[in-house]
């Protein structure tokens, strides 16, 4: 009777366990080696934050997953005034925050004014805005000093709920305030748990106005290192690796059941030249030969960018073609002047310009020698490798680069130092990188404008024609009219070469094919990434758990480790006990014999 009761209880327990497994939550586990600091857009600036914010929040105008162009966010539609300095946004109707409160124009105004005015990385977008007004709950009017196309499709400021964040004084928001959890938002999932250094849990927003998300939960799991994330993915402990290193990319791609994703990003790595004029930098220090355009163009032909990508980046990057990465689908085109690898042409150009081989094969003209310092940051092994390759390739055409590995701080100092209030850069060339915005190309195009000398310009290039075109395109809302202007600007920079863009940085991800269905590479389609990295929540409409059969296979194994170790420890303890007892008996016998 007693035995029967025990068996019945065990069977019931097993049945319950089975049921629990059947009802198990559909959780997507994403691993990363670095996690956000506070998740507050007022304080944080890491890309990990943007990954989470992009799912938790909307923008006034979202980025389209198809081509990154403007698509409805909190604004359903918008009208442009004839002078292009006023944009009237019409809000989506009936939408709610994840806590059930209505989304209104007051939230938009608060976000643009307060986050746009004080957020760690958001103030640059509103420098041209003169006023944000809300005549009613469904309308927002944004006025600007001059036409600014970024207002539609480039206003990268998250929309925060005023009824939550607005209660805090700005001083607190910008110093110590941490977002309330759950993090009230408007995206398909919102953060419901944030344990720093461990886990961020996101769960569906039940008031989300779009398609119901397919996962019950997204877990962002922090590991100690990139290697640990790769191992966790290989072992099936996680489903997605959010940031694969170039070194591991190929290996993961060869692993059964894992698929890798390589997409372009808005970032590039460039060889920059010091083009600062006497007018802007009277005390700058550089070899004047670096300002000879023919020399820079010859370097362009002498450097094999494909090979640099192959060796330094293990072929995980994209070869650079001008200062606009191929990520900018609406604006990108391979420039007419593209500097294909042609060392013979480089030699001919230098010969024709009077640069003749001198001591040690280094070309010279009069007292000037084609010998340049090439600074590179000690923190980036890839950049150091880039510099070595540039040196080796340029040597073949008679140009000498002296590679100087310095700290990021030192290079920042060399490129930003001033004398008597004027810029005084002290370098010939350096290798570093820049990152741009998701859709609008202005952030990258402005790097070589005259107005940025003293700001973010580090080539100190100045060309009035380029500046004029920059202003023209920045105020042009019509994409068909804007694209040819951008193309013209790219051709100018390719001719004058303030930067020789070596490679376009990739977004590298990997996922387990048995854990994820509905994958449509997006942002832009079809060459983008798994979940619109840092840009949009749109892919979460299709991304979902696998079919039942695949999930079953995935759930097998695991969880038995402790049982096995307990059994093993038990066996060892028993064996040791037997051994000690037997030995003691033998010794006692020996002692008596003695």
């Amino acid at each position: 009777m007693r035995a029967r009761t025990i068996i019945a209880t065990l069977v019931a327990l097993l049945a319950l366990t089975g049921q629990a497994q059947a009802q198990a939550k559909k959780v997507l586990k994403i691993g990363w080696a670095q996690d956000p600091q506070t998740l507050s857009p007022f304080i944080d600036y890491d890309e990990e934050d943007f990954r989470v914010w992009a799912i938790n929040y909307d923008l006034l105008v979202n980025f389209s997953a198809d081509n990154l162009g403007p698509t409805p966010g909190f604004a359903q539609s918008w009208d442009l005034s004839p002078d292009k300095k006023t944009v009237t946004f019409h809000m989506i109707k009936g939408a709610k925050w994840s806590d059930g409160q209505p989304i209104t124009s007051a939230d938009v105004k608060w976000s643009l004014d307060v986050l746009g005015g004080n957020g760690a990385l958001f103030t640059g977008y509103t420098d041209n805005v003169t006023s944000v007004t809300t005549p009613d709950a469904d309308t927002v009017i944004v006025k600007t000093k001059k036409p600014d196309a970024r207002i539609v499709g480039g206003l990268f400021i998250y929309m925060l709920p005023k009824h939550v964040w607005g209660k805090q004084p700005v001083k607190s928001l910008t110093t110590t305030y941490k977002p309330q959890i759950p993090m009230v938002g408007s995206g398909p999932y919102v953060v419901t748990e944030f344990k720093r250094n461990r886990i961020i849990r996101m769960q569906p927003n039940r008031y989300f106005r779009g398609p119901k998300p397919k996962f019950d939960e997204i877990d962002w799991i922090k590991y100690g290192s990139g290697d640990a994330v790769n191992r966790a993915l290989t072992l099936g402990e996680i489903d997605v690796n959010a940031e694969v290193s170039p070194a591991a990319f190929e290996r993961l791609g060869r692993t059964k059941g894992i698929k890798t994703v390589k997409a372009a990003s808005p970032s590039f790595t460039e060889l920059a030249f010091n083009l600062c004029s006497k007018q802007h930098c009277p005390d700058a220090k550089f070899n004047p030969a670096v300002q000879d355009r023919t020399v820079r163009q010859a370097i362009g032909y002498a450097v094999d960018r494909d090979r640099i990508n192959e060796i330094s980046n293990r072929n995980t990057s994209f070869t650079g073609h001008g200062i606009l990465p191929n990520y900018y689908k609406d604006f990108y085109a391979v420039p007419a002047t593209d500097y294909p690898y042609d060392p013979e042409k480089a030699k001919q150009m230098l010969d024709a310009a009077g640069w003749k081989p001198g001591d040690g094969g280094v070309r010279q003209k009069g007292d000037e020698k084609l010998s340049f310092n090439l600074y590179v940051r000690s923190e980036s092994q890839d950049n150091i490798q880039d510099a070595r390759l540039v040196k080796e390739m340029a040597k073949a055409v008679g140009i000498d680069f002296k590679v100087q590995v310095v700290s990021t701080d030192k290079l920042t100092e060399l490129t930003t130092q001033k004398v008597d209030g004027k810029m005084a850069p002290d370098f010939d060339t350096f290798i570093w990188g820049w990152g741009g915005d998701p859709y609008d190309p202005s952030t990258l195009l402005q790097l070589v404008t005259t107005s940025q000398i003293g700001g973010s310009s580090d080539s100190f290039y100045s060309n009035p024609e380029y500046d004029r075109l920059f202003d023209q395109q920045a105020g042009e809302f019509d994409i068909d009219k804007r694209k040819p202007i951008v193309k013209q600007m790219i051709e100018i920079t390719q001719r004058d070469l303030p930067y020789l863009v070596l490679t376009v940085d990739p977004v590298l991800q990997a996922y387990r094919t048995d854990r994820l269905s509905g994958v449509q590479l997006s942002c832009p389609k079809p060459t983008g990434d798994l979940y619109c990295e840092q840009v949009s929540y749109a892919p979460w409409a299709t991304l979902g758990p696998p079919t039942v059969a695949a999930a079953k296979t995935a759930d097998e194994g695991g969880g038995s480790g402790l049982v096995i170790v307990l059994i093993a420890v038990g066996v060892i303890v028993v064996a040791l006990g037997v051994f000690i007892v037997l030995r003691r008996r033998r010794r006692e016998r020996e002692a008596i014999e003695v």
Partner: protein
Amino acid sequence: MSFRWLVGKAGAALLTLIFVLVFNFFLFRVMGDPTAQLARLPRATPQEIVQLRHAYGLDKPLLGQFVDYVGDTARLDLGISQRTRRPVWSEIGDALPWTLLLIGTGTLLATIVGTWLGIVAATRRGSRTDDGLLGFSLFTYAAPEYWIGLILILILAVALPIFPAGLQVTPGKEFSSWFAHAADVAEHLVLPAIALTLVLLGQYFVIMRSSMVDVLTEDFITVKRATGLPWHRVVRRHAVPNALLPLVTLSAIQFGYVMGGLITIETIFSWPGLGLLEFDAINSKDFPVLQGAFLVFAVAVITLNLLADVLYFFLDPRVQTA
């Protein structure tokens, strides 16, 4: 005389601590400014970088920062983490229990196994068992921590998927009971604890072995054997207690070595203790956390060393008369 000896030791410990305090401050600042990276994001305007440097207190002259640091540390205020904006004490408080669990388990296992193997080897001096154990322990002692960690992962998590390769608990799992949670943590603890045990084992083994060999050749052991006591009883009751003395200090002195190994082991196994906290702080140049965690490490090592000296003072009368 003995009081003066103790005061001298305590004074030396205090001086070491002050030196570590000063050294830490300047050492970490050699790594550069955490806001330098921001300069490359077009989103970050120069004004924003200035604001951030102000928020971090990096716009003050180095000497001013140092004075603030010394004053705050003297008041036991370790400051606010530049990354998380939480008090450094909270960051340390979150990480410390995990470190104590790992160090405690690793040290305990290493002491027990290392001592036991030392006794086994010493009682079989010159035998194959002795040679084998000596070779094994020297090997684990000499092998780098990361190598041991990776090999364990390769064997026991990848080739034979018995244990989890990292973290302290299965992520996202909800536990029905406290016991289920503890069992899950225990499962995750196995590999990092074995790694730490292997790293520490060698030294315990070598010290215990040589100490035992010394004791076993003493006259009183021969006398005990001559009285007819069984060999295992001579070893257990008379030799081992006398040979244990050097291990007392070793446990304390080795603590510094444990701390060094801990950063590597916690990073490899994603174990969220002080080592990983330190590693992340180095990567993000979070000076207050770096300084705070290093201070905790330094205080722990210095205190334990002092404790070892004091313990030895009471345990070994020769020190008192010296």
